[in-house]
């Protein structure tokens, strides 16, 4: 059932590419239809898999001479992330309802990207996973370069090259692991077994792990390799920035977990030397994650462009995911996976409000200009949606972000208490930048210029009414975040056994 999410998306992309040009409505409705159908499959697969461990969906030899299998499977982590992808895909289409330029091509690239993302989350063969991972690069580039805004060609090229360099590092590591393990199999299940049984020597894991981990973490926005994220997010059209922050960054984090930690469990072992509090790759990456949390939040606090605030907040929130992974304990890693889901929903919502609801009406993202527009009165829906999204993003109880970040912090406390303290600082700054952006963009009292006042009451310059796709999208994302926040067990029951199995060595 879950595998159909991949096939539907790619088939949809192909059909979109062949649709007649100029029929924007048809392209939109068809894309929505495909995404909703895929979402149903994702939901169906999620509930059908509840309480089950890892299920093999399909396993056929692909390149028999090299031991490569077309192996799709799902465990709890995959199911949750597939569900996230389905939700983000539908929301992204709702918020790109106003794309008029080369509409069918837009949705063709969009669905191809979604198909690649579904594929990564469901692949249990190293090379199949890598193939899907790279498939996602090209549509990202074109989505940003063709339909983007601020410095789009620069942002698109930067993102494409960062992703490709990251995947090159991953490929080097994977080739090394494959040939060290004897070139028999590329199945993640087999390779994880080799890693635990010692076929992959510990010393090999120690040097190969950082290569693969950093390769994936580039896409997860790990400091100091995060610089593609803000520029890419800002340059991207709304739907693409929703997907970038919502699911593409999760691809990186998922790769760090599934391939990095799953395949090189000894890569995080202590080196034996201890210097300045750093004694293993685990310490190194945890410190980078903590720096990312605090740095992202501080930089977000200083931005003048509304979208950059959200862009840097993504870096900060993804820092929690990486920190959670580095705790290596049940609660921390579970929190990291839940944070991937939660941030996927909330970041999507924030980008939708900033990029679609506000920017497409005011044509500015400068906080200084938005201050004079009294959007709180003129776009009350946007203002209150942002209030709710902001609360979710700050990690207020009742929203999914709270449960996730709490678990990460508890896990970090068990590992090294000071990680929690430093990350806690990041949360406080997170409240500050959300508050600041909210106040400046929507609830500022600053008097507008006389000219702007004139425009405000001029019907020619009135802001367009909120449309139904926007309302649907906002309601959908808010209610998912709220529901998961109030009843986190619905995801946790699925995530926990999978994390346990993965940490124990990839078995059931």
């Amino acid at each position, binding site marked *: 059932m879950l595998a159909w999410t991949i096939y539907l998306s790619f088939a949809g992309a192909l059909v979109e590419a062949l649709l007649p040009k100029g029929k924007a409505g048809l392209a939109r409705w068809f894309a929505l239809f495909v995404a909703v159908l895929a979402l149903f499959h994702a939901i169906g697969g999620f509930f059908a898999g509840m309480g089950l461990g890892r299920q093999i969906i399909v396993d056929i*030899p*692909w*390149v*028999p*001479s*090299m031991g490569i299998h077309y192996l799709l499977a799902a465990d709890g982590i995959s199911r949750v992330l597939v569900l996230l992808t389905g939700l983000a895909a539908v929301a992204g289409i709702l918020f790109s309802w106003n794309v008029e330029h080369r509409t069918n091509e837009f949705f063709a690239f969009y669905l191809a990207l979604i198909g690649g993302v579904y594929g990564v989350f469901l692949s249990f063969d190293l*090379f199949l996973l*890598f*193939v899907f991972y*790279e*498939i996602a*690069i*090209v549509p990202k*580039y*074109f989505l940003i*370069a*063709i339909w983007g805004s601020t410095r789009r*060609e620069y942002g*698109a*090229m930067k993102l*494409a*090259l960062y992703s*490709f*360099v990251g*995947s*090159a590092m991953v*490929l*080097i590591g994977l*080739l*090394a692991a*494959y*040939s*060290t393990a004897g*070139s028999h199999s590329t199945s993640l299940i087999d390779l994880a077994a080799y890693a635990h049984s010692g076929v992959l020597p510990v010393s090999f894991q120690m040097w190969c792990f950082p290569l693969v981990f950093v390769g994936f973490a580039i896409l997860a926005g790990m400091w100091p390799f995060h610089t593609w994220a803000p520029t890419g997010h800002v340059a991207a059209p709304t739907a693409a920035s929703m997907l970038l922050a919502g699911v593409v960054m999760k691809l990186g984090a998922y790769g760090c977990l599934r391939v990095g930690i799953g395949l090189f469990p000894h890569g995080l072992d202590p080196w034996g030397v201890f210097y300045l509090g750093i004694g293993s790759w685990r310490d190194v990456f945890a410190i980078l994650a903590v720096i990312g949390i605090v740095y992202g939040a501080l930089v977000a606090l200083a931005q003048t462009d509304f979208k950059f605030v959200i862009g840097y907040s993504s870096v900060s929130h993804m820092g929690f995911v990486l920190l959670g992974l580095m705790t290596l304990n049940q609660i921390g890693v579970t929190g990291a996976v839940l944070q991937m889901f939660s941030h996927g929903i909330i970041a999507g919502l924030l980008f939708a409000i900033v990029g679609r609801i506000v920017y497409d009406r005011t044509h500015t993202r400068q906080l200084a200009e938005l201050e004079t527009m009294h959007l709180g009165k003129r776009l009350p829906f946007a203002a209150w949606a942002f209030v709710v999204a902001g609360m979710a993003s700050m990690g207020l109880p009742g929203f999914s972000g709270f449960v996730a970040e709490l678990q990460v912090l508890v896990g970090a406390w068990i590992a090294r208490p000071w990680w929690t303290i430093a990350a806690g600082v990041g949360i406080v700054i997170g409240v500050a930048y959300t508050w600041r952006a909210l106040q400046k963009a929507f609830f500022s009292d600053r008097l507008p210029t006389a000219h702007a006042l004139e425009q405000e009451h001029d019907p020619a310059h009135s802001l367009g009414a909120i449309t139904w796709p926007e309302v649907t999208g906002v309601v959908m994302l808010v209610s998912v975040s709220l529901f998961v926040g109030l009843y986190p067990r619905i995801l946790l029951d699925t995530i926990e056994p999978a994390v346990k199995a993965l940490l124990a060595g990839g078995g059931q």
Partner: protein
Amino acid sequence: MNYTDLFRATLPETALEVAALLVLVVDLGFLRKAALKTRVAFASLLGVAGCAAAAWAVTIAGPYSQGNDLLLAAGGAAGVAQVGILVLTAFTLLLLIGSGFTRNAGEYVAVVLMAAAGGLLISAAQDLLVIFVGLELLSLGLYILTAFAKSSGKSAEAAMKYYLFGGMSAAFLLFGFSYLYGLSGSTSLPRVVYGTYVASAHGATPLLYLALVMIAAGLGFKVAAVPFHLWAPDTYEGAPAPAAAFIASVSKVASFALLISISSVALHFFSELHFHYDRAYVTLTVSSGPVHVTPGIPNAWQTVLVVLSAGSMLLGNLAALAQVSVRRLLAYSAIAHAGYILLGLAFFSWTNASANAVLYYILTYGLTTIGAFGVVSVVERASGSDKLDSFLGLHKRNPLLAAVLLVLFLSLAGIPPLVGFWAKFNLFAAVLSVSAGPVPFALVALAIAMSAVSLYYYLQVLKRAYVMPAVDESPIKAHPITLIVLLAIASAVVVFGCFPAALQGWIASFYPAM
């Protein structure tokens, strides 16, 4: 000398030569008064038929030896390369139909077929003299093809440069061969290898290094490896598009097939001595007493290949970044790809794995590059230049052509699920499985890092085709046959990429069952 065997061994070459003569007779005889279009169509189709006949002949051709020395091999890597050469030649001939750069279709096709015959010869050759004759037959054809756009000054200039460099490199090659002959007393490859092992076992003789460097210069020129690459950008830029496609694909396949047979012979030599892995060396008895020989590719040859490979990967990829002409960009990318392939040849395996990986790479690369030149030639005819900016707005001017370009360039960059990714993966996996150690690993890491660089320049072209606004939005028309060929190539790139095992199985089918 057994003439029946000789005839059977050279049946594919004979088929091509007969087809070449037939094309000349038909074109200059029967069709003398016919319209140019008819003549071009007839000449190319006859040429394609000749290729088909030769491909059939490859399947029944046998090996040919004189005394105990094998002169021409059959089947195995040679067979794969020969069929590959014929298929690629057929594609370049079909591209001629829509290109219209010449009035002398008959001569053009005849020269192409003769050059292809030279390619077939060197793919199978196991003797230094046969290798040299085959190479010259191929090269002379290529010089003529480069100059074939008689009204274009660029074409003549490119041919002149190509010819001067080529003549010099042939001289180097022959010089190197003569040293090898002096060291080993034979022109047969296995005996030459034996001779060089013995010579190097007594301590590296400077003569052997000299010979190998000379040969590297000669063969490095053919595959456009740094530092013998200087001809490539000029030739790719100046030659008429179908000829450039031929040079970039068929000539490359043939030259790499030759390198494969050299590397294979070096290893085959040890398997004939019943060498086992657990022994560090073999003892050979020569006139001066017993000598120890370490198995594997001779170290000197490996060093030479590694240097060529690293240089080509670095320079090819970095220089391509600065190009504004798409043809020159393709030339530098060809240099980079030659670097990757040379890596596979430097770390060559006992089994057929390496030979297969290299063959897989060159065949798919040749196919992709023919397609790329096909697209360039159509765009060039419409806009009068091959500059990056003439690709502006291609997706509006001809969406199908733009889609083909997208597929082919992404495949060249190595993006899955296109065939270029599998070719790279296959090759690098073969390198790492042959020799574990820091040097091959570092080189593979360099190759992968450099292919990340390559994405930038391929995207420069695609960006113009898809992203940047068009200056001129008038539609570009491509000849239907060109379009069919390009679509066939693009779909092959996608299909072989999704089902990589199909092509691997086909290549493996040429080897006798184990």
